């Protein structure tokens, strides 16, 4: 069985049982805060005081921290090497041969890494604690177009099958003698024999699929019922409004003090 295309980690926790929109509002607020707060340590502190405790509550601290580590590290290394060492002019902190660490570059790299850390952290927390299908149901309930919800849920379901199909095609073409290793020209030449079967095969399926969904009342204007129940509470509704207010507040403050 293919692994599903999502980072969702199934756990029984308060965080997982929150209404998807509550988590979505929180994530959105954190993203705005990461981009709008001017103080460079704010992103680190918010990550440590909001994202990490929430992940502990959701029993996903370990996978979350691992995912943050692997996604943030490449950026952090690049940004410190490039912006820290190659900053045009500024106060020199220390010098090592031809390169020197500049204070301005170091501050910039620290701020950028914090921003990336908090954005990825918020996003990963949301993705790990929210089932995509419940999110879509919740969005549909507040008037999100059904067609978009269909696209997103279907994509998440079919991507693993496409990845498997791509692997099958790769193996099949290799067994017919297609060279997929060697110099760049050899590898580039392997591209079309792999891409064509994948794309043509799937496009031909599209027509059949369209007939299939139309036969299952895809275009019906009636209100649909759902298999999955989502629980909401008054506390959460109030919390959502508060978070939205806070987010707007941060944005307004940012516009005024700049």
């Amino acid at each position, binding site marked *: 069985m293919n692994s599903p*295309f*999502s*980072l969702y980690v199934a756990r029984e926790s308060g965080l997982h049982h929150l209404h998807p929109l509550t988590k979505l509002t929180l994530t959105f607020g954190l993203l705005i805060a990461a*981009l709008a707060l001017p103080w460079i340590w704010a992103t680190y502190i918010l990550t440590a005081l909001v994202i990490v405790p929430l992940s502990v509550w959701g029993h996903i601290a370990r996978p979350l921290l691992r995912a943050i580590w692997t*996604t943030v590290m*490449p*950026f952090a290394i*690049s*940004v410190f*090497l*490039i*912006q820290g060492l*190659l*900053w*045009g002019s500024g106060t020199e902190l220390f010098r090592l041969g031809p390169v020197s660490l500049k204070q301005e570059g170091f501050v*910039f*790299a620290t701020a*950028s*890494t914090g*921003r*990336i850390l908090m*954005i*990825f952290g918020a*996003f990963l927390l949301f*993705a790990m604690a929210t089932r*995509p299908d419940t999110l879509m149901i919740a969005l549909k309930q507040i008037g999100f177009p059904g*067609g*978009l919800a*269909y*696209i*997103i849920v279907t*994509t998440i379901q*079919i*991507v693993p*099958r*496409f*990845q498997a*199909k*791509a692997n099958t095609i*790769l193996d099949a073409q290799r067994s017919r003698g297609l060279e*997929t290793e060697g110099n*760049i020209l050899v*590898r*580039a030449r392997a*591209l079309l024999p*792999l*891409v*064509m079967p*994948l*794309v*043509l095969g*799937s*496009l*031909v399926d*599209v*027509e059949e699929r*369209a007939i299939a*969904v*139309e036969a299952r009342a*895809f275009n019906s204007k009636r209100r649909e019922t759902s298999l999955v129940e989502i629980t909401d509470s008054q506390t959460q509704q109030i919390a959502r409004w508060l978070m939205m207010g806070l987010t707007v507040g941060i944005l307004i403050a940012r516009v005024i003090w700049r």
Partner: protein
Amino acid sequence: MNNIINSIKKEFTTTTLVLIPVAIAINIAIGELVVRLNLPVYLDSIGTILVGVLAGPWAGLVTGALANIIWGLIRPSSAPFFYVAAVIGLMAGLAGRWGAFNRESPRWLSVLIGAVFFFSLAMFILAFINLQVVDGFPVFPSMAGLLRQYALVFIAALIIGGAIGYFLLQNGAYAGSAGLITGVVAAIISAPTVAIVFGGVTGSGTDLLVAAFRASGANILASALAQGAVSDPFDKMLSFMVVWIILRSLPARFKAR
């Protein structure tokens, strides 16, 4: 106004809605194949371009945006660029309406486009590398000076570009040049996000280019732009070419839907 809304609605038939998830899956599957083949390109918008051409610019726009947001579920770094992917889908759709994907171009045009593109790319990179900062303001070297100083580089660029045009673009110069233009636009509009959200780096191999541009004194936004301008147009040109080849092998009945 109503006309516009109606024309948008007309693009989103059941077939389009079913096609979009398949296209996004194609983006992801091919994007990963390319990584496994260890090729220095992305090719992660082939599905988006296909939808733009087959279903229309608005459908392409939606596909691009959703593709990056959904991909963001497992690779968060792609989500902030959803608007870039949306523009790529939109432009592919416009190019499709204009007929870039069903006209065959003469081969001399392919040679010309390849040569002009490589010439401009060489000019662009050399201008950045020879950039001088005077009193905090960047001063670009004069084109004539560059031409004289690097005459051999430019001649090589013209020859390589012409050869690439002849052998790679072949009869698809219209699709290829639409891809080049799309790539230039993508590079320009993605640079601010790279600079503001990611501190000017991409966390991948093209950061070597960022380093080179930063070392020559270009500022963060300019370096991000230069990095994109080197990698995006070529990548989008290849993607458009692949779609052009795919469309030639599709049965006419499918294209009619």
